[in-house]
């Protein structure tokens, strides 16, 4: 039992240690509004990480999410800016996310091309296309309904947290208790066996990438409403942060294994460090070093476990 959840436990402990350190060194970290800020900071990564978890469990990977993220948020903002009703703008953004995911899915599932190469390509394409299109100009003067969904700040922050939590719970349960979720595990564990068992692995893979696109778009919106402007670089390096969080959370890059609960902890841990360092008045230039160390330690932990059995 403990062995089964070893990764979740060890990462969870690491997180508790960090929080303990904060409680001890700078209790002000735990003020309600700081926690809300923290949540808002983590939420987009979490939603994207849910998608990435599915993708990695299917034994694929998607490094184009950063670009998709930027593009979707930007499109939503542009439309809203042009006076399109905000919900419609958000809807369209999600649609675009789905489309871009579908493109990846099409190339990967039906043509059986390696996902890492395909998404590497689409990543560059979307990113550069956006830069070319708007030369990096942010979208300002957005309608009232955009910022915090037109709510006041605190409500907006809570809504963000709740939406993310709901998405997380929905997927967490589906992955365990819904046949569709198990089909994803099966496909990632053994493609051919899945085919013989009557699971349609191509379809599963395709759908997973579409979901990835949708979740990325959703994440980008959750991120866009935080500020009064939307920048075309909002998704830079997102893929690395998310993949790191997912593997720290114990999802096997070899597919077929991993649980969303671990991912939640992973996202929380990596997402908190930056803010924590500021509260600990640490020399922030060592932030990346700490991140890297944590990732390596976390993944080492279950390597040790493997060698034990």
């Amino acid at each position, binding site marked *: 039992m403990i062995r089964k959840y070893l990764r979740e436990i060890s990462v969870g402990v690491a997180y508790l240690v960090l929080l303990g350190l904060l409680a001890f060194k700078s209790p002000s970290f735990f003020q309600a509004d700081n926690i809300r800020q923290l949540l808002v900071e983590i939420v987009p990564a979490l939603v994207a990480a849910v998608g990435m978890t599915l993708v990695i469990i299917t034994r694929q990977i998607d490094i184009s999410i950063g670009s998709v993220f930027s593009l979707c948020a930007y499109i939503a903002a542009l439309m809203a800016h042009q006076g399109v009703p905000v919900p419609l703008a958000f809807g369209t953004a999600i649609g675009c996310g789905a489309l871009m995911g579908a493109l990846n899915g099409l190339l990967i599932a039906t043509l059986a091309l390696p996902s890492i190469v395909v998404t590497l390509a689409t990543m560059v394409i979307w990113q550069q296309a956006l830069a070319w299109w708007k030369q*990096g*100009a*942010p979208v*300002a003067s957005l309608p009232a309904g955009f910022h915090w969904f037109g709510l006041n700040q605190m409500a907006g922050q809570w809504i963000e947290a709740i939406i993310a939590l709901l998405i997380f719970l929905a997927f967490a349960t589906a992955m365990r208790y819904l046949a569709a979720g198990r089909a994803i595990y099966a496909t990632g564990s053994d493609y051919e066996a899945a085919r013989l068992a009557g699971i349609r692995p191509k379809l599963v893979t395709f759908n997973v990438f579409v979901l990835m696109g949708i979740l990325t778009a959703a994440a980008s919106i959750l991120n866009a409403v935080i*500020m009064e402007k939307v920048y075309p*670089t909002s998704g830079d390096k997102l893929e690395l942060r998310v993949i790191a969080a997912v593997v720290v959370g114990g999802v096997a890059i070899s597919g077929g294994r991993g649980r969303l609960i671990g991912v939640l902890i992973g996202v929380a841990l990596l997402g908190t460090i930056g*803010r924590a360092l500021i509260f600990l*008045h640490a020399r922030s*230039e060592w932030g990346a070093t700490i991140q890297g160390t944590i990732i390596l330690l976390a993944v080492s932990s279950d390597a040790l476990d493997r060698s034990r059995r």
Partner: protein
Amino acid sequence: KKEQAATVSSPVGKQVVIGMVPKSKGDEYFIACRKGADEAAEQLGVKLIWDGPTEPEAARQNEVVDDWITRGVDVIAVSVENKAGISTVLRKAREKGIKVITWDADSESDARDYFINQATPEGIGQSLMDNAAGVMQNKGEFALIMASRTAGNMIAWSAAVKARLTEKYPDIKLVAEEACEDRPILAFNQASAIIKANPNVKLIMTICAPGMPPTAEAVKQSGRTDVKVIGLGTPKANATYVHEGVTQAVILWNSVDLGYLTVHAAKALAEGRLKVGETSIDAGRLGKIEIKGDNVLLGSPFRFDKTNIDQFNF
């Protein structure tokens, strides 16, 4: 053969070709510079090529310049990201008979003909720190958010700020120093954390054009009216926050004019009208601009605040 190539690409015939390199495309500040440059190019009928790194990385600028040397342009005008780095290739350009101008940030002086000088790192550092001190009444804590820890000019600027701090303001304390990697969302998160983590911080100084509005946004959302923001940025992007009183001052020169002037100087240089010893240059709508040695002076950094910020639309 080269002539043919030239005529192919430009039916006008012998048209002056100016290559202009920003530090980083997609940075609001440089977008503003480009506005002015295009305007001037329009007026003067020169061919302006505008290209540069999409992310601040030293070698990229060198590559752009290298290729333009191959392509053969008349003038190369660079906003220098890495002084030592770019100088080697600028010298090469001059050997090849290409006129070289630096703007916005200077290279080593022997590597270029003229520097369109709107401000030196020292100048910027000073006016930033002085303005900050003014807002803080010369005492209290403040925090610094810079664009990146690796870009040469950033390092120079933050160094200048600190130098000024130690030299003139003993009662002011720098309590936090972050780098936002030119990413607005990071600036936002860092600012909001800084405010929470340092209850009696009085001011945040953001030396990063894309980072400044988010900083103000964070301060505003924190509801701490006693915390103020100043920094390097473009007026339009910060106007709202300035009016709301969050942002006290935006330090900058008129970057549209900077681009505009650069192109004028470049054309003059290319046509030999800008010879050593000139004391002034006629720069279209800017009128006569003073020249000291090999520095074309746009004038010292400019302070945008409530009173004047709305007069600028860039």
